[in-house]
């Protein structure tokens, strides 16, 4: 909810969202993964809000909401323009045309279209499964099995560009090539 008497419901209230650290609304019980993203330093600035509402999974693995995202940039811009009315410091949204919001990482459609080699992915996965368990157990460290290929690629790409903060994952993702990310996505999606 948003507005003067907004309360936390399925999601937290959204007043003063712009510039707010993730996971910081009092009294709302966030998902484990949202809290992980929060303690890694996720801040709801305009770019991150935009990315999140486009594809929540690109920033946070699992949230409390069943929401797959909004593809259309205009629709997202409108939603943000609406939400910013309830923020005291709505950061750097361009005044008139909220459609011009920069989005990073801007994933080239050709990257999403890359066909991954699952055999290569299986070899590379050795590096992942030291921490992420192949049976999908997620205590302390999120599960990465059975994802949509596209979500997987977007998430790794967001670490690779440093957009999604996490020391270990940035270090790992930084040196993965696009083919390698595609291979990993192809391998883990079938697990």
């Amino acid at each position, binding site marked *: 909810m948003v507005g003067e008497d907004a309360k936390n419901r399925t999601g937290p209230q959204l007043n003063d969202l712009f510039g707010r650290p993730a996971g910081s609304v009092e009294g709302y019980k966030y998902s484990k993964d949202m*809290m*992980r993203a*929060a*303690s*890694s*330093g996720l801040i709801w600035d305009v770019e991150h809000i935009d990315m999140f509402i486009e594809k929540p999974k690109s920033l946070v693995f699992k949230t409390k909401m069943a929401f797959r995202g909004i593809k259309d940039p205009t629709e997202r811009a409108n939603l943000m323009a609406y939400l910013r009315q309830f923020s005291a410091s709505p950061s750097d949204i361009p005044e008139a045309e909220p459609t011009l919001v920069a989005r990073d990482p801007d994933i080239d459609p050709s990257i999403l279209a890359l066909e991954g080699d699952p*055999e*290569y992915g*299986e*070899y*590379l996965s*050795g*590096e992942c*499964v*030291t*921490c*992420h*368990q*192949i*049976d999908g*157990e*997620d*205590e*302390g*460290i999120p599960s990465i099995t059975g994802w949509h290929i596209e979500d997987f690629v977007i998430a790794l790409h967001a670490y690779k560009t440093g957009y999604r903060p996490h*020391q*270990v994952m*940035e*270090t*790992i993702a*930084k*040196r993965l090539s696009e083919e390698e990310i595609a291979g990993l996505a192809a391998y883990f999606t079938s697990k």
Partner: protein
Amino acid sequence: MKINRRGFIGTGAAFVAALSAPMVMASNRPKVVVIGGGAGGATAARYLAKDSKGALDVILIEPSKTYYTCFFSNLYIGGVRDFASIGHTYGKLASEYGINIVHDWAIGVDKDARTVSLAGGAQIPYDALVISPGIDFVEGSVAGWDLTSQNAMPHAYKAGSQTQLLKAQIEAMPDGGTFAMVAPPNPYRCPPGPYERVSMVAHLLKQINPTGKILIVDPKEKFSKQGLFEEGWNKHYAGMIERVGPDFGGANVEVRPDAMEIVIDGDVEKVDVCNVIPAQKAGNIAQIAGITNDAGWAPVTAHDMKSKMDNNIYVLGDSSAQGDMPKSGFSANSQAKVCSMAIRAALTGSKAFPAKFSNTCWSLIDTDDGVKVGASYEATDEKIAKTSGFVSKTGEDAAQRKQNYEESVGWYEGIVADMFG
């Protein structure tokens, strides 16, 4: 009856003939022998068996029936984990992966005949040999200490009964008594290990013996994550921990296990518990195999972890001299996967991919106060070379530190599943 028996004998012979075909094929499979079922060896055996899908005959030689991880053994000392939770067995490696587990010591390697001899008397032939025996101690590196003193002054640097002994001694310390640690010189397994241990001992003492003292005698100028540990010690255990570095005689130490004394630069200190972590070298079997250098470690090429001294031997983990990676369970596990991919490619013609390595070491300073350091590495012709890395920062907020700890718990579950199935 007669006919039956004859018939039986007859079909029996046919059976043998029929069976012997797959049997011969089975024993013709290339044989890979792995010495040591720890972070490096167990991972290598599992990946060799799993990824070759039966094309390799994998034999793992490990004397212990239960492997106690050194990782998280400090948390057991601190009372954060129980002992059973750090013990793991080899059952699944045998039943689910078809690995032949031989509980015995390797005592010799004949590089020309390509056989390993076991303490029990057997000779095991190999096409490729993986050696991952962890560390042994350099004799005479701490004056006054040898393996016969390990009851009076435990090292607890191979996990198991030594770890239990050290914890029991700390718990029995008189009120206000002193726990001393003789820290090792570089290089040694788990660079932050001694300092995480100090943190966990302090954590335990704070609860059961709050006036107890901790004395670290250290031959090194600096140590891993020093700023983070010192900040944490000040915050959680103010006044409890003292460290004597080389500038005050930390490198000039003698211990007297009978008298429970340590002599630092000529000054005698009476202590109640003394944890001696001596200087280290590759596990003895590496030296016996003749693949170690003057410093006592086994040099390997970075692309495949192959010994620089022998074409059929590969060395993993703590024993290897590979370049920039710290001696950690994470590193050994990471190297094992590169190595098993290379061995499969050599023996079965499977695809070889470029080597990639990584490591992250988490350390727990106090409840929910975890820190981490990590890096990724690549193979160059010269060594395993660091490409980029990170380390936790001082002054981080509590949420980040708690997340680090929770991550380490997830990592522990992940790596033991990756080793033991």
